[in-house]
């Protein structure tokens, strides 16, 4: 009886609970600000770098106007970029134009550069989305299978297989598929076959990495103490997998998605060009060939924004999904 009184006396209330909402909002605000700063830094660097390179080239105005521009276009570029004035003023003009999203006209396509990019964006997004879904399904299945067998022999050869598969560059695979399916640069542009092959090529490149990473997170999650606790309370293997191992490991793997998108966009440049898929990547590759500077600049800009938007979105999702990331003040004694 004295014991019961003691219990009530020392009854632990726990820490004063701050509203979850406050902690979460502050955390999200900080992450978004961080991403915005990163984006700004990247854009600044890219713009400065391209300014330096342009300035160092033989005829900046011609370069800026784009190859194949008429003399009139070159002259107007000369004026628009203020290439007569002092260097610092030129730099500022350059920056301001980029900030105003004024990238000029493409002499090759006879259209506003930014517009061209905007038109092609949905195609790339569609390709990327499909690849992400396919990769997600395959990589998670393989990764879970692999991660749960961490100590066993099957792990060894499966791992080696993945590593070797990953070593076949998307470009080489794409070309082989190109050959095998009898495509020529001109045939069946934009067809479902080309789309499927492009997806396949990109997925081939992405799946082994993601699978290996997922295997790592799954193997790690399965070793955690709380899995043992659940098992000690009679959890079946299935309950353990779906209730405790997967939620935690997939959460960790979620952080991966941002990097995957970045890599995908990178690879998409080559793959879209190869399969003639009319997306932003193909535009970039083509513009490099034709020396279409305005379009190149616009594309890099848009892709940079896209990449950091994805990172920010992933940050938000992680914040919403992982309770530990909501920084409520840590309770005393913890």
């Amino acid at each position, binding site marked *: 009886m004295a014991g019961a009184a003691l219990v009530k006396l020392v009854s632990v209330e726990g820490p004063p609970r701050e509203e979850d909402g406050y902690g979460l909002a502050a955390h999200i605000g900080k992450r978004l600000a961080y991403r915005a700063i990163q984006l700004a830094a990247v854009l600044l660097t890219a713009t400065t770098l391209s300014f330096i390179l342009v300035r160092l080239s033989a005829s900046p105005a011609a370069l800026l106007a784009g190859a194949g521009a008429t003399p009139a276009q070159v002259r107007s570029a000369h004026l628009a970029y203020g290439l007569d004035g002092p260097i610092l003023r030129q730099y500022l003009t350059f920056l301001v134009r980029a900030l105003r999203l004024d990238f000029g006209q493409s002499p090759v396509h006879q259209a506003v550069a930014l517009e061209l990019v905007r038109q092609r964006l949905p195609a790339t997004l569609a390709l990327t989305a499909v690849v992400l879904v396919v990769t997600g399904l395959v990589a998670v299945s393989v990764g879970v299978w692999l991660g749960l067998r961490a100590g066993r022999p099957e792990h060894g050869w499966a791992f080696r297989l993945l590593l070797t598969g990953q070593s076949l560059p998307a470009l080489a695979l794409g070309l082989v598929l190109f050959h095998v399916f009898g495509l020529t640069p001109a045939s069946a542009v934009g067809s479902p076959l080309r789309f499927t092959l492009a997806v396949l090529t990109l997925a081939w490149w992405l799946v082994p990495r993601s699978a290996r990473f997922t295997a790592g997170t799954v193997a790690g999650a399965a070793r955690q103490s709380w899995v043992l606790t659940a098992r000690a309370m009679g959890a079946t293997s299935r309950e353990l997998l779906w209730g405790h191992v997967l939620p935690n490991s997939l959460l960790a793997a979620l952080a991966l998605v941002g990097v995957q998108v970045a890599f995908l966009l990178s690879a998409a*440049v*080559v793959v879209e060009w190869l399969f003639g898929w009319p997306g932003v990547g193909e535009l970039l590759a083509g513009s490099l060939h034709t020396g279409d500077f305005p379009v190149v600049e616009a594309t890099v800009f848009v892709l940079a924004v896209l990449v950091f938007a994805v990172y920010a979105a992933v940050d938000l999702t992680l914040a919403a999904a992982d309770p530990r990331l909501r920084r409520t003040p840590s309770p005393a004694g913890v």
Partner: protein
Amino acid sequence: MTGPMLAQEMGLSRRLMPVPAFPMPGLLIGGSIGLMLVAVLGLIGAGLIQEHVTPTQRLLAPGTLGHPLGTDQLGRDVLARTLGGFRWSLAVVVPATAIAAFVGTLLGLAAAANRGWTRTILESVTESAAGFPFFVLAAPIIGLAGRGYWPLLMVLGIVSSAPFAIAVFESTWRGRYPMGLTRALHAVWRALPAVGAFMVADLVVAEVCLSFLGAGAPASAPSWGNMLADARQSVAAAPWMLYVPATALLLTVVSANWFGEGLGQLWGPGPG
């Protein structure tokens, strides 16, 4: 480790993944053999002259006398050119990796040795560089600077320093009390080779892709990227133009990846 840092590891700092419980010695051995083979082939390639343009002998199939692996659309011998490709790839990628390792190590050590704002800035710079699509940055720069050996080398080197910075930082950072210089250098010495091997694999592929797009090697250089670009035009008529350099590329990348993974397991942090 925060979410974004965790994300860097995929594909960039693979050695940080939990090591499989069964060590796989075959990887290191196989990788080493492959890399030595690559080096030998590169040396052979260095001694050959590949630029015999003989239009009368274009698109010859493999097995023709004097051209064991056929010729391309300009009559150049495919075997000779592929061997030259080994040399070209090594000549670009090895110095680029060295540059990246050097810059990355400096960045990583600087980040580990400092605290507060300096470290935060360095970390976020490295993180943005590592997380940014490589091509979207590299291709336009070379496009502006012009094709050629040196622009290619510099771009590849500098843009790829982020993974080294991350690896060096991770192995020398001890929280409150930074390690002494000798221990740090030892840790760096252990951390770099595996990352370096993976970087070589990635850079070989990157160089090939850049050259394929026309934003890398000069048109006449025996880069596999150039060969693949040529192959794309004539693949139906002359498939050997595709498969020979593709096989060479595959051999190189597999060897480097296996070597890197094997080394990472040997010297790595141990099971997660």
